[in-house]
């Protein structure tokens, strides 16, 4: 495994904002968790890391979109990525399962370690990566096929040989959708409501037994009730899966996540990880003033 971020040399990004990032011990209104954070963006969760991002920078063509991100994503926890739009949250998320490969001109430096292997290593196949690290998108994108085939698809292309009826039922149950669709599995996935479609997409992702599920603003196209359902579901899933969720809804991050990373593009025009830590700390005693400004709604 690689070194922990606390011992890596400070990245360019970290150095760049050290001037402004004055830790504020005086602000600790309610000191929670005994996390030992030495700098706003230096934090090692107590759990083992499912993913370890090391000094990751992403470029689109010549333009840098994300600079020097280092963070450990803890296993079987929900990690939220928050920040104003354009700060590179989706970019980081796509880097975690090689979906950035699909964007012409996207280029990556640094590393993402998964089970001791760099996802960007020379003999890593993106198809193997995506099978293990699933993704749910902002806009529900069920296939124009039946509910059953939507769920079965991933298993089919991966050559699953087991009982498909059982697999589909189990996945739909896990996604809290089974009771609503069990009599109608032949119905088109497109005929479901937005919230149901999104849960179908989650079921579809679960059916290939991933370890990690990445969600890019999964509720931003949904109404509040559907949103609550998905959040409840995420809490359930966190018992078995590592979840990384991008959200611009801070209440959502506060409600569902265990850890939160705050990103900002600022004048630099490229996104940086400003602060990372247990969600409660980030929301009650942020170390960086910019984090506090953002979560109190002063900008973004």
């Amino acid at each position, binding site marked *: 495994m690689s070194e922990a971020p606390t011992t890596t040399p400070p990245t360019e990004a970290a150095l760049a904002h050290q001037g402004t990032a004055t830790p504020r011990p005086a602000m600790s209104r309610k000191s929670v968790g005994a996390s030992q954070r030495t700098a706003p963006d230096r934090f090692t969760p107590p759990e083992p890391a499912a993913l370890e991002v090391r000094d990751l920078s992403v470029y689109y063509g010549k333009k840098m979109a994300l600079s020097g991100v280092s963070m450990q994503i803890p296993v079987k926890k929900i990690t939220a990525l928050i920040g104003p739009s354009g700060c590179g949250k989706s970019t980081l998320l796509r880097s975690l*399962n090689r*979906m950035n490969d*699909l964007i*012409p001109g996207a280029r990556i430096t640094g590393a993402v370690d998964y089970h001791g292997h760099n996802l960007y290593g020379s003999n890593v196949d993106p*198809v*193997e990566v*995506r*099978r*293990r690290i*699933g*993704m749910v*998108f902002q*806009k529900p*994108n*069920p*296939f*124009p096929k039946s509910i059953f085939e939507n769920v079965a*698809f*991933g298993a089919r*292309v*991966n050559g699953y040989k087991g009982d498909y009826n059982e697999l589909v039922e189990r996945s739909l149950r896990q996604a809290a959708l089974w009771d609503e669709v069990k009599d109608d599995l032949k119905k088109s996935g497109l005929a479901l409501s937005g919230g149901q479609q999104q849960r179908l*997409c989650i079921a*579809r*992702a679960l059916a*290939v037994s991933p370890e990690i599920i990445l969600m890019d603003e999964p509720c931003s196209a949904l109404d509040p009730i559907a949103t609550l359902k998905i959040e409840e579901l995420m809490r359930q899933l966190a018992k078995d899966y590592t979840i990384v969720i991008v959200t611009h809804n801070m209440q959502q991050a506060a409600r569902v996540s265990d850890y939160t990373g705050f990103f900002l593009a600022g004048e630099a025009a490229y996104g940086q990880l400003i602060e990372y830590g247990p969600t409660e700390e980030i929301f009650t005693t942020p170390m960086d003033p910019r984090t506090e400004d953002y979560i109190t709604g002063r900008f973004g």
Partner: protein
Amino acid sequence: MAVSLPDENFTLQATGRVARRQAISRASKWVLLGASMIGVVVLFALIVDTIVVGWSRISWSFFTSYPSRFADQAGLRSSFIGSVWILSLTIVFVVPIAIATAIWVEEFAPKTRLLEFVKLNLANLAGVPSIIYGVLGLAVFVRLFGWGSSILAGSFTLFLMILPMTVIASQEAIRQVPPSLRQGSLALGATEWQTVWYHVLPGALPGIITGVILALARAAGETAALIMIGAFTFIAFDNTSIWDSFTTMPIQVYNWTVRPQEAFRQNAAAGILVLMVVVLTFNTAAAALRERFRN
């Protein structure tokens, strides 16, 4: 509250400039209608004339007779069979090659300047006059490959001729498949090929089939390119092999029109009617298909 009384001088009828502008607007509709009617009326007159001249020749024996020196014994048999052969082979060649090309260009080809150049030239190729394809077919298939004026040479020529428009139609159909479907598929660990096979192709198929049918309608009516490669011949047998010499319906019609006798003009008109029904059937099928898959 005071009730405001209607003002005697106030009116909402068009007056002055508004009236003038409205008059122009109303007149424009009639001018445009008139312009549209010119095309429709001429076309209608042509069809009526063709029916009037040719209808009496439409009979079962018109389809079962070979061409003949005697107009009243001549029929479409060999040219109809020739057309079926040529079109069937053309489909067999064009469908896989056009789909494969379109998929490669849209889904797999690295996005380079060269690719842009190729795409641009596909559109240009679709506009090349058919006689040029005939010259090409004559030089390459008939002479260089030594296939002679055979069905194989004819269908290869038509295949080349309709390939660009079929590729373009397939490309457009493929581009209509939303990127979110591809992302959803790839994110589940499907390979690029699985994504194309299970999502892109099924989504694009209606558009592709429509494009193929429309291209075939063009091939069915093609005359110049085939005459160029030597299909302007007297065929009094049924084609049974791809090496046979052949003729097609539009060529047979052309053949009849250049005869001096009035009776052959009737045959030509009857042939045109048959051809028109064939092409209209193709086009209707394409439209129906597009409608059916739209929902």
